């Protein structure tokens, strides 16, 4: 009797726990938005919100892929370099006369291939993901510089669709934001509603057991690193359109922002635990921070300090809640 009485509140506490765990990052975002908009009401202007969404799209897309990678217990440091290399290759194709949309498509495939190289190093080569992608990051960045000779690639013409891709609007919403939302929806379904998603969690939760359960761990991992590369390339295409050029140094340290978004979204770096919705929220937190601090006129040096501290606080609060 006693035990049952006691366990009832425990069940409730559990429920509250999971709810705050799920909502934790979202609450953080809301608090942040309130603070920023009190300090500078122009933050909430529709134009700025649309702006923000467009700014967030690139980091969010990369972070979506990173979420899958981190869920398997891995990490992908090469996303920024993949973005740069695929962007350069895409721009190169466009300059050489290939249809821009086709070029973007091919660029995304090349990005996926680069990601799969990571996956192969990690699975077949049995390298730690950190070191494999650190090395490939260096190599891809080098290749980008070799290919571009260190110069930006310009002269991408004025194909309307191509320009729309990074700069345009559809029904008043920036196209990059639309791309982000559609991608999110697709990935959400894959992660939470299909066997592939289950496998992703399973590998991160217990790789050995997954193997014994007949999951083709290596294959799934290669696909996931491929996905990460693909999304980095997609983000790269948006950037190429926004900058109307391919920059050899594009994407430098984007991996860190993407990882920060994933972690702020509550996904555990040790794998097996987390949600892609959290990542979207995490990317929005970072974006709001960047945009908000700019709007508040905080100097870029202090911005870094604030960003570091906000990440720490957010993660600490999250730990507290789930503890």
């Amino acid at each position, binding site marked *: 009797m006693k035990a049952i009485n006691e366990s009832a509140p425990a069940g409730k506490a559990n429920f509250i726990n999971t709810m705050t765990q799920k909502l934790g990052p979202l609450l953080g975002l809301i608090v942040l938005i309130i603070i920023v908009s009190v300090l500078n009401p*122009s933050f909430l*202007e529709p*134009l*700025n919100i649309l*702006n923000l969404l*467009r*700014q967030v799209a*690139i980091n969010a897309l990369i972070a979506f892929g990173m979420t899958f990678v981190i869920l398997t217990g891995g990490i992908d440091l090469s996303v920024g370099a993949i973005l740069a290399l695929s962007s350069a290759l895409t721009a190169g194709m466009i300059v050489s006369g290939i249809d821009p949309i086709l070029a973007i498509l091919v660029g995304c495939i090349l990005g996926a291939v680069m990601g799969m190289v990571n996956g192969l190093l990690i699975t077949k080569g049995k390298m730690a993901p950190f070191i494999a992608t650190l090395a490939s990051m260096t190599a891809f960045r080098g290749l980008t*510089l070799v290919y*571009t000779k*260190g*110069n*930006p690639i*310009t002269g991408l013409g004025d194909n309307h669709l191509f320009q729309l891709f*990074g*700069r345009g609007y559809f029904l008043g919403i920036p196209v990059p934001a639309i791309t982000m939302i559609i991608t999110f929806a697709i990935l959400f379904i894959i992660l939470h509603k299909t066997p592939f998603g289950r496998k992703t969690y399973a590998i991160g939760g217990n790789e050995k057991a997954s193997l014994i359960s007949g999951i083709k761990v290596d294959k799934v991992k290669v696909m996931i690193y491929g996905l990460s590369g693909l999304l980095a390339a997609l983000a790269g295409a948006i*950037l190429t359109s*926004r*900058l*109307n*050029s391919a*920059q*050899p*140094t*594009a994407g*430098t340290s984007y991996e860190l922002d993407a990882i920060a978004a994933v972690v702020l979204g509550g996904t555990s770096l040790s794998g097996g635990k987390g949600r892609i919705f959290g990542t979207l929220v995490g990317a929005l937190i970072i974006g709001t921070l*960047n*945009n908000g601090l*700019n*709007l508040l*006129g905080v*100097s*870029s*040096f202090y911005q870094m300090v604030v960003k570091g501290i906000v990440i720490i606080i957010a993660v600490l609060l999250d730990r507290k809640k789930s503890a």
Partner: protein
Amino acid sequence: KPAKKENLKDIKIGLSVSTLNNPFFVSLKDGVIKEAKSLGMEVKVVDAQNDSAKQINDVEDLIQQGVDLLLINPTDSAAISTAVQSANNINIPVITLDRSADKGKVEALVASDNIKGGEMAAEYIVDQLGEKVQVAELEGVPGASATRERGKGFHNVADTKLTVTAKQAADFDRTKGLTVMENLIQANPDIKAVFAHNDEMALGAIEAINSSGKDIMVIGFDGNDDALNAIKAGKLEATVAQQPQLIGKLAVDAGRDVVQGKKVEKMIPAPLKLVTKE
């Protein structure tokens, strides 16, 4: 659409700098702020940290804050174009500093002539050491317009009158200047002079040369305080001095004129000066 503003006190300037981790741009920013202050204008500063994508976001954020005039020091000339175009779309005048924008309507570019500067450096070496001596080149951040243009100017002269035996990127960074130079000396023992695309790298290179015990002439670019001191101390041979404060000041002045509806020159050069010990 921002109307012509007669009262300067109502004018809000947005300044987007490529990076503030470099004394050159800090001076440039200071020049802008000082001049704006003396004219009673307000300045909002954003720092792109050398990331073109961040710079576009920064400019959007400035526009969002309702600035009347944009001063942009582009991280990259090509990449900034779309941001300039966004400003054009809502008729906010744009002036670029130190580096140009490839596309979009820019009222004026205030900059040193980097190609000319590169040529000046090469010619100085020829004057001092004669033709066909072996020289090395420390390049700036790959792809940056300053790197390209200074390199271009330098090679305009050096390719015919000097022998460039080695060139490596040291990213406008003093630490890299040091290590890259150490290796260059080892690989090319007969180098007689070095042209560094900025003073930071030049100062790093000097430390490397000192510990090698060789006698190699170093020419920098920028003319920052450290470099001028080093020239006084006889460590640095010469520098192609830019006047970043002046670039900032000229840009604000041009901006004022634009907002008040006056005509300004498309290209406003800030004078370069070769500084040597004499």
